[in-house]
């Protein structure tokens, strides 16, 4: 007999299931709108030019492969902090922060979650927006924390339930942890406007909450890195010492290279040093030290003026294509004769869009049109191209008219 006889089969990953079914489909018109990675207008993965250039530079330098420090590549972590906080940020200039390299967004979130479990003794509760990225819950749970929720998405309007959010947040027990998506909320694409962010900041300050920002799409949402980081920077300026997770998977297309960072804004540089030492103690028994390749590419791009300029153009290009697909989808739906209000498709931002489609309608899209998405009606706009947006609009109209 086996030690593992009682081990249950893990539940199938819902998003993976979408891709598996898509692969099996022989319909030439099929569309995979479950994919969480950017695609170009030909539906192909896109390796950024600035990434290729950085890679060529790295190859020519013939560097060794010695272990990175536990906290990662220093040029990368410093540039990452500056990208998020802004070069004029008082917190950045004063050095009252610590940034460690993490394994893309997930790894950075997990370092933070473990750090909170060990050092944030005021509360075990993490408040997530409803809904949030599916992996947030198991990450915090595995770190030993508990999950709560605050209202966020209003399915009636397919937009932000701002009064619901403010109401719920006003009742969160003091010194709890609240997670906020910095931009391009996943999965809804619904972000607060700047005036709303201001009110949210005032509220979390009033409730004395610990703010955990997840910023996985800086630059990728609006096309402007400063605009996408506005909320993070505003909160810090208001005296809220946030903690932050960053990912370079989407905005630099470095998905499989796992480039990310975790930052803690501290009272002063001395506190930052103590926090850093504890983060290292957490990281060492997880994987000792982080992988170099992605961080080195990102670092070169951020720290080389020409490459950085090129990157800003390319990330705007990706964001613009997404925005353009949203616009075309809405105009095509109008052309199809749809009488529904599809404004939320262009109001929402980032890679994902909560269409508002119901499970039965999603089912029909899959079965009758070979258009694959998750049951909650979420589509990855990255999977839409100028070649198939017409087909998508036609199909959506058929199942909603």
């Amino acid at each position: 007999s086996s030690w593992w006889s009682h081990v249950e089969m893990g539940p199938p990953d819902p998003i993976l299931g979408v891709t598996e079914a898509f692969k099996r489909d022989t319909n030439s018109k099929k569309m995979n709108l479950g994919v969480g990675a950017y695609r170009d207008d030909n539906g192909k993965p896109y390796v950024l030019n600035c990434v290729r250039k950085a890679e060529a530079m790295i190859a020519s330098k013939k560097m060794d492969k010695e272990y990175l420090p536990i906290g990662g590549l220093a040029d990368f972590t410093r540039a990452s902090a500056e990208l998020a906080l802004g070069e004029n940020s008082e917190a950045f200039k004063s050095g009252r922060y610590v940034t460690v390299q993490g394994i893309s967004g997930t790894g950075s979130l997990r370092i933070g979650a473990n750090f909170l479990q060990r050092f944030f003794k005021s509360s075990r509760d993490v408040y997530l927006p409803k809904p949030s990225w599916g992996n947030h819950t198991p990450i915090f749970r595995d770190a030993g924390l508990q999950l709560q929720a605050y209202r966020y998405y209003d399915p009636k309007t397919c937009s932000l339930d701002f009064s619901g959010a403010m109401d719920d947040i006003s009742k969160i027990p003091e010194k709890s942890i609240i997670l906020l998506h910095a931009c391009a909320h996943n999965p809804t694409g619904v972000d607060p406007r700047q005036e709303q962010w201001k009110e949210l900041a005032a509220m979390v300050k009033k409730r004395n909450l610990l703010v955990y920002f997840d910023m996985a799409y800086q630059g990728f949402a609006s096309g402007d890195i400063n605009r996408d980081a506005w909320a993070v920077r505003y909160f810090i300026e208001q005296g809220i010492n946030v903690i932050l997770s960053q990912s370079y998977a989407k905005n630099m297309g470095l998905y499989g290279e796992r480039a990310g960072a975790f930052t803690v804004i501290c009272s002063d540089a001395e506190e930052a040093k103590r926090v850093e030492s504890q983060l290292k103690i957490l990281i060492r028994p997880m994987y000792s030290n982080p992988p170099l390749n992605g961080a080195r590419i990102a670092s070169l791009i951020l720290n080389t003026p020409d490459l950085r300029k090129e990157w800003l153009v390319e990330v705007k290009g990706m964001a613009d294509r997404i925005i353009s697909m949203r616009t075309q989808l809405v105009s095509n739906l109008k052309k199809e004769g749809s009488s529904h209000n599809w404004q939320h498709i262009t109001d929402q931002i980032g890679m994902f869009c909560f269409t508002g489609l119901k499970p039965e309608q999603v089912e029909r899209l899959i079965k009758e049109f070979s258009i694959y998405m998750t049951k909650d009606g979420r589509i990855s706009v990255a999977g839409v191209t100028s070649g198939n947006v017409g087909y998508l609009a036609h199909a959506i109209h058929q199942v909603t008219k």
Partner: protein
Amino acid sequence: GVGRTALLLLAAYRTDEGQPWVLPVVKKVEQMIANDNSLNHEYLPILGLPEFRANASRIALGDDSPAIKENRIGSVQSLGGTGALRIGAEFLRRWYNGNNNTATPVYISAPSWENHNSVFVDAGFKDIRTYHYWDAAKRGLDLQGLLDDMEKAPEFSIFILHACAHNPTGTDPTPDQWKQIAAVMKRRFLFPFFDSAYQGFASGSLDKDAWAVRYFVSEGFELFCAQSFSKNFGLYNERVGNLTVVGKDADNVQRVLSQMEKIVRTTWSNPPSQGARIVATTLSSPQLFAEWKDNVKTMADRVLLMRSELRSRLESLGTPGTWNHITEQIGMFSFTGLNPKQVEYMIKEKHIYLMASGRINMCGLTTKNLDYVAKSIHEAVTKIQ
């Protein structure tokens, strides 16, 4: 001056010039990857690059492994050996010996790599113990102490075993001793969790260095083996590792892997691609594989040479004590037997940096500094007691 210091601390290979060494086969494969415009940076699957996983486990278990033939092995690409250990530890804590049984004793050798303890503590285990291993008096393996500990260990305890090139002592059980260890573990239902960080690097032979793991598999054990490709591929900073799972049958292994996926998903989602590509490309090409084995032998041979050179110098100098342990030990590290005071002398007076335990990294020795190091050890041993 530089010639008068020796850094014997680092856990990384150095050439005879005291430099890091990027393996020639790695340089070649990296160039191939760089020139291949069809490659992109898309996410790997949660469990990693399939070609890497299969090849990595094959390296550990052997081409003719019955477990592979019977389709009862699984692999989890991990961030280095540490990552593989941690994923394995997290799985064991959740699923081994009951559900979420944090009380299962975990036995770690005395001494061991200092991070082993933290890995299992952070994975949630509450009862971490040591098993006898290093006999300081005879400078060798305390086999009887080890076997006694296994006899006394509660059934189902987990034992962390170093597959070869024990860190930090460099002292491995002989095949005969491994057989005795396996017999006790089988009888007492103890779980073998191998840490294999030096396959090929220890003796120069992949098969020889994997003998213990393969023996346990042939004895029908279900086991975990955390593999690192940091040293034998010199890919330290790319974090290339693999957790090999050997189970009773395919069905069990499949369920185990499905739960491994859940653990990976909340730790790093999916593993880094660059290092795995290099290893997979190398292992799946007969020519590159041969080149790699050659590169590995180059490293192992240099270490073996430094061992024999250091020993012969100490014996020529008539340094008090016996020094055969220097050549009997294997791998990157050697427990010299120097006591803390002698170590302090080495550091302060001779600028030779080694661990307080007396552990030196043989890779830090070069033909240029051998004489100096030998003389310094001689001084330390004769002047300080």
